[in-house]
């Protein structure tokens, strides 16, 4: 078997193992915490032992734990994450009523977080590619040193600090942009607006207005790291023989940088963003908390605080985020193999931007 096939197979297997571990951990969290599962269906205080046994039988909690786990995974495979404890518009469900399906809620929250992360990533590349190229075109010049210094300040700045200060000045003091909240991209019918604040101001303009500051915060956090990474990568590319060939043929500096070096610089860096998705989720938690946007992070905080623990929601969010991260990482590795079949290790292994800087989220 060729080495790349071994690598692909191993990556696939380890991803499946990771996914299974993830479901196992969340399942254990889910099944361990409520001591009397029957209370979801009936009022324990007035129930006879036979009622409890019947409720447990209906819920399937009288089966051995491995059977329960198997059914949990089986339902997950069919996209069923259960129902929330909390009802859609505040308040907890009583044993007789049930909440909204978790899967729908998680997808809705995921769309908000996705909007922040995707727009932020675009802004990030719009800023960091020119910065990195500028620094790489004149290494060790004052421009390069200044960009290195700024990057150090960038990775030392807490995203919360950026978010709070931008909110304080851009929104609270000068009223250039809305202070917080989120608007749906697609307008909803008027009847829905009564229940959902995010539908009241819907439309692309309102949507973008509410997302401008979050996008800036998101991209500022990564700009430091990425402009340095693009610089390092570009310096490597500029050393390659084909660049010398281009120069020998008389290509201008501008043409060498943009036509010859840029494509080979940017593609690997774009795939790196997919690897940083775990960090990106963390940044989005901060952003959503400050700007009160109903994404995955803010929903998590809401499901934990105040009225009590909304366990199905938490399990759903953990599973969803973990799965997205694992699958994206797998895709990046597979893509790297498709581009360069000689690769035998994860591209992550050789990644050193600041060498050290660990994750803060």
């Amino acid at each position: 078997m060729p080495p790349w096939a071994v690598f692909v197979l191993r990556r696939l297997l380890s991803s499946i193992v990771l996914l299974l571990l993830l479901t196992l951990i969340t399942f254990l969290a889910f099944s361990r915490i409520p001591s009397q599962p029957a209370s979801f269906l009936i009022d324990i205080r007035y129930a006879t032992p036979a009622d409890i046994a019947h409720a447990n039988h209906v819920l399937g909690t009288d089966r051995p734990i491995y059977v329960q786990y198997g059914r949990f995974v089986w339902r997950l495979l069919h996209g069923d994450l259960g129902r929330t404890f909390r009802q859609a518009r505040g308040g907890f469900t009583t044993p007789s009523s049930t909440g909204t399906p978790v899967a729908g809620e998680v997808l809705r929250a995921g769309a908000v977080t996705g909007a922040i992360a995707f727009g932020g990533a675009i802004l990030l590349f719009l800023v960091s590619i020119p910065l990195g190229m500028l620094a790489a075109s004149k290494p060790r010049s004052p421009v390069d040193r200044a960009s290195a210094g700024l990057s150090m300040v960038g990775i030392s700045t807490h995203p919360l600090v950026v978010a709070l200060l931008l909110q304080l000045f851009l929104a609270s003091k000068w009223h250039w942009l809305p202070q917080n909240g989120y608007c749906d991209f697609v307008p909803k019918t008027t009847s829905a607006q009564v229940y959902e604040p995010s539908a009241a101001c819907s439309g692309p303009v309102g949507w973008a207005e509410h997302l401008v500051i979050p996008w800036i915060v998101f991209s500022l956090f990564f700009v430091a790291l990425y402009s340095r990474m693009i610089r390092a990568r570009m310096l490597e590319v500029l050393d390659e023989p084909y660049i010398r060939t281009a120069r020998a043929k008389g290509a201008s500096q501008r043409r060498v940088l943009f036509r010859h070096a840029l494509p080979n610089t940017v593609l690997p860096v774009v795939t790196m963003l997919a690897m940083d998705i775990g960090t990106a989720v963390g940044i989005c938690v901060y952003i959503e908390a400050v700007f009160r946007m109903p994404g995955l992070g803010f929903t998590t905080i809401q499901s934990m605080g105040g009225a009590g623990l909304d366990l199905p929601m938490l399990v759903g969010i953990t599973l969803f985020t973990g799965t997205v991260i694992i699958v994206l990482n797998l895709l990046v590795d597979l893509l790297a193999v498709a581009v360069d079949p000689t690769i035998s290790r994860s591209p992550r292994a050789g990644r050193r931007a600041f060498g050290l800087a660990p994750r803060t989220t």
Partner: protein
Amino acid sequence: MSTGELEARRRLPAAHAEPTVVISSPWRIGWRRFRRDRVAMASGIFLILLVLAIFPGAKLASVALGHGPDDLYPYAVGTYTLRPDGPWSWVPDTHQLSPQTSDTQIAGPVKGTPNTLFVLGADGPLGHDLFLRLLYGGRVSLEVGVGATIIALLLGVTLGVLAGWLGGLVDGAVSRLTELVMALPILLLLLMVGTGLGDGLSRFTFWGVFNDGVVQLMLLIGAFTWYYPARIARSQMLSLRNREFVEAARMVGARGTTIVRRHLFPHLLPSLVVYGTIMVATALMLEVGVTFLGAGIQLPTASWGTLLGQTWGSALNPTVNSPDNFQPWPTIAPSVAILLTVLALNQLGEGLREALDPAGVR
């Protein structure tokens, strides 16, 4: 030849002097290089000053100003707007509002009440002294940062050394575990576990050494950041364990534990020092984040996280956003403190890395 013998030989009378050989330990070479690095030196000095300002300084400032970080000063905020006073304001030294004289007006302080100085103003509608809370809060945040780092280093180095030295099944298990933890969003997990624990551990303060919640947060952050030092320790062990000096040690009959302790661990130390410095910065950032999101240090304890959190939509601060009580200082002060501290720690780490790099210029 041990260092003791070398010292003794160097002190011999000059009569039978050998050519003097200056033995420089790697640490001494590192220190020489470090001293030349102006940015790193400045960061180090800043951090020493910060520790002085926070540990003895907070108490001293509190005594000098005549009030504590948790004292309430209702006249330090605007009477109707609840706008906190700005920097360098003299505040009536009383903890209570005067009795109301009419239904519509809030009475001023009793005539003759002495004033007390708020160096950075008040921190929010409750009217604490922001300056003192910044100092006392820095203490909590730094304690969490350093404590979490120590826990993460202990855990990570133990696991990493075991994995790298023993290999096989142990290595496989530790590597899978680190991969799993790395794949997950740490912040979400910290939030969930932090909330799940509730008050479980937060009352444990090592008999009054720390504030409430500090030990719990140290343990939590340590438990989710150990895998960085683990990976470093593992990869170093893997690259070192088949080197000649290990073989030599084995040949003269040294046991495994001795080899690891005496011959391999010293190689790990420089990278652990560098990494530890940067991890303190990371843990401090996590403290701020987790506390801000409500799963860390709880009010009224001051920490840089609670200070930041107070300025944002908490129940204590409902009117912060109306234009006539705009007051940026309660946000700016902790922001600057966090930024400078983390920047100094990161620069110090970079400086140490360059200074202790064996391949670097002497």
